[in-house]
């Protein structure tokens, strides 16, 4: 079912070292951005606030892409609902940020967020309790997506739902969540979601320092996730996943419980996506049900395809390049950018089945 051309990891020591060097250099370069941001305006090397903010967003997308690649590129599980895990993580963090607003909301209520005040809530719903603590929020940002992925995966993998069927189910999942979160009665702010955050960990969010801090947090998450994924894929676990991707039933006859392997990687992938979402929210300053839109999840999968699936680094590259293109085109050619992006997706699936990473790999081979 899945094609076998995407090899798990680059072989040959020189290529591997080359890539590792490039990745470290790229991360170091990214780490420099907030420093360059502090240079005085007018300096040739100065990086604008906008660049820092946008790059921080891309980094979070990079983690999401990485999470998708781990599940899709290695274990062959194509989830079209990863945006849901990302958004759930984001909502967990958003709830924390809302609690931190405290009496600074427009109605000045000490506990209830504004939207609850004008919807007539008298007290905080039970599922909001605990979110005033940062560790709890982070825990929930991992636990909720993880638990949902575990439940969905357990039901589906056990019933041997694979391939496009699984994709369609995950798509329906994120769609159902989107509809549910749009409801104001859910207690998550409906269509408006959460916004107008004030601070995180005692630092006001609209400062250069806070942005730099979040940027580094995202970068550390990206580097950490990359190392974790790289480690997993280089162990026997990673090789079993590749085997599952290429010949699922054969793996069963070797005595491996395919369900538990898929379940663990899918859950881990969802947790990573949740963490990415949790960092994304304070960076962009808003979370709302639009993040659950099925189109978003498909787009995230396309980043991976563009970058080259089954390569980890390629997924991150794809997330960065597609989003950079989108940021640029929505300003440069606001009426035509959908054509460019759409054509890019078509061209990549048609002519570059191994994505951008395949271009480099092709050369080193």
């Amino acid at each position, binding site marked *: 079912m899945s094609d076998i051309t995407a090899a798990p990891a680059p072989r040959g020591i020189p290529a591997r070292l080359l890539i590792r060097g490039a990745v470290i250099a790229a991360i170091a370069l990214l780490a420099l951005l907030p420093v360059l941001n502090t240079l005085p305006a007018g300096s040739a090397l100065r990086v604008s606030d906008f660049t820092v*903010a946008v790059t921080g967003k891309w980094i979070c997308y990079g983690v999401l892409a990485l999470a998708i690649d781990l599940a899709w590129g290695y274990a062959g599980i194509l989830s079209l609902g990863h945006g849901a895990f990302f958004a759930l993580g984001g909502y967990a963090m958003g709830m924390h940020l809302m609690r931190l607003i405290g009496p600074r909301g427009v109605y000045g209520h000490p506990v209830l967020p504004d939207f609850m005040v004008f*919807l007539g809530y008298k007290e905080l719903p039970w599922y909001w309790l605990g979110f005033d603590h940062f560790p709890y929020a982070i825990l929930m940002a991992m636990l909720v997506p993880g638990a949902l992925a575990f439940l969905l995966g357990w039901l589906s993998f056990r019933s041997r739902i694979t391939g496009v069927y699984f994709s369609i189910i995950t798509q329906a999942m994120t769609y159902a969540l989107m509809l549910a979160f749009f*409801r104001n009665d859910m207690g998550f702010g409906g269509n408006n979601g959460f916004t107008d955050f004030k601070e995180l960990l005692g630092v006001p969010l609209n400062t250069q320092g806070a942005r730099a801090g979040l940027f580094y947090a995202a970068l550390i998450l990206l580097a950490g996730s990359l190392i974790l994924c790289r480690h997993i894929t280089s162990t026997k676990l990673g090789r079993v996943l590749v085997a599952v991707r290429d010949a699922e039933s054969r793996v069963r006859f070797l005595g491996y419980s395919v369900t538990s392997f898929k379940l663990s990687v899918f859950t881990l992938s969802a947790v990573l996506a949740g963490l990415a979402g949790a960092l994304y929210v304070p960076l962009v300053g808003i979370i*709302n049900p639009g993040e659950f839109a099925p189109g978003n999840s498909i787009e995230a999968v396309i980043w991976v395809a563009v970058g080259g699936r089954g390569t980890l680094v390629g997924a991150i590259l794809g997330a960065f390049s597609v989003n950079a293109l989108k940021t640029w085109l*929505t300003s440069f050619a606001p009426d035509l950018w959908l054509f460019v992006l759409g054509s890019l997706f078509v061209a990549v699936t048609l002519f570059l089945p191994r994505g951008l990473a395949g271009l480099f790999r092709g050369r080193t081979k």
Partner: protein
Amino acid sequence: MSLNLTRRAALAGLGGALAMPAIRPSFAQGSPIKVGVLHSLSGTMAISETALRDTVLMMIEWANSKGGVLGRRLEPVVVDPASNWPLFAEKARELLAVSKVDVTFGCWTSVSRKSVLPVFEELNGLLFYPVQYEGEEQSRNVFYTGAAPNQQAIPAVEYLMGKDGGEAKRIALLGTDYVYPRTTNRILRAYLNSKGISDADIMEEYTPFGHSDWQGIVSRVKRFAGEGKRTAIVSTINGDANVPFYRELGNQGIKAEDIPCVAFSVGEEELAGIDTKPLVGHLAAWNYFMSVPGAPNDEFKAMWRAYIKNDKRVTNDPMEATYTGFRMWTQAVQKAGTTAVDAVRQAMYGQKVMAPCGYEEEMRPNHHLTKPVMIGEVQENGQFNIVHKTPTAIAAENWSPFIPENASRRG
């Protein structure tokens, strides 16, 4: 024909982004004034927002034809936030931090405004927001040129309950499930209660965006109306869901004479996609209708038709609010002698413009305009027959007195 039109608009956007040298050399001096245009050109909101993008571009052309502002040429910076709310915030930051625009016209939905608000406040930008909304907000960086609930919703319900409107005693509040309908309906419920209409006589129902199957809800409204009291519908249904809603009303034979439906989000632009014959007599409440008589509106309509090169294109309330806001901004800049945000903000207070609605509107220190309220009935030709209007423009109560939590804010 419309292909040319949009291509033209695209070129205008392109021109803005590329900072092409001035085509007309008649400007005195100084770098151009940059005007950000932050309206969705793709995605679900494109249907409403593209017309506003065109209105801003038209106004820029108009200002430039008059020699610009402060002798400087105006230059549009068009971006597409693609109906994606986080992208709105990103694009707002880009407009302010990278393109360094002097003023921005943009947003339609409340959530997009909420999304960009922290950015405008942090970077001290200036946003003109042209759409009627739920109120409960006031930012020093935003000028709200659309209606607050007391300038639209409450007068409309008053009309329905009056003799001319059919003396409704039972109200069905139908809305799309988002903050504008929720807040508006909360205000309306408090208002209706204060007028002696009990909760048993109020039906409230919400549907998702783009809801297309209205059969069940419309039959429930019929049932609700079958309790022996004159019933009216107050619709805060948003954009796309309106066409199937009105079709269902028409097909289930709900006539305006029996159960009138007053809408706050349906204007000429929305009616353009509907066969209006079965809808004659249903109502809309706005601060402007294209059918308003008088010179200011004729001028506005002529300007729009000349710009868009299409006689069939209609004007609507948010376009008028954009027009009025833009005019006011140019006046304020002239008065302040600079585009610096703080100076322009001060100069904005008290600015007056004879708006196309035929009333002189004034920017109050609460950042909202005084506006007249008009009730129009749908006519067969897709226009509105104005059946009621307030004698004067009324001031906005952006903090509604019907929300108890606001009691401490204003007397």
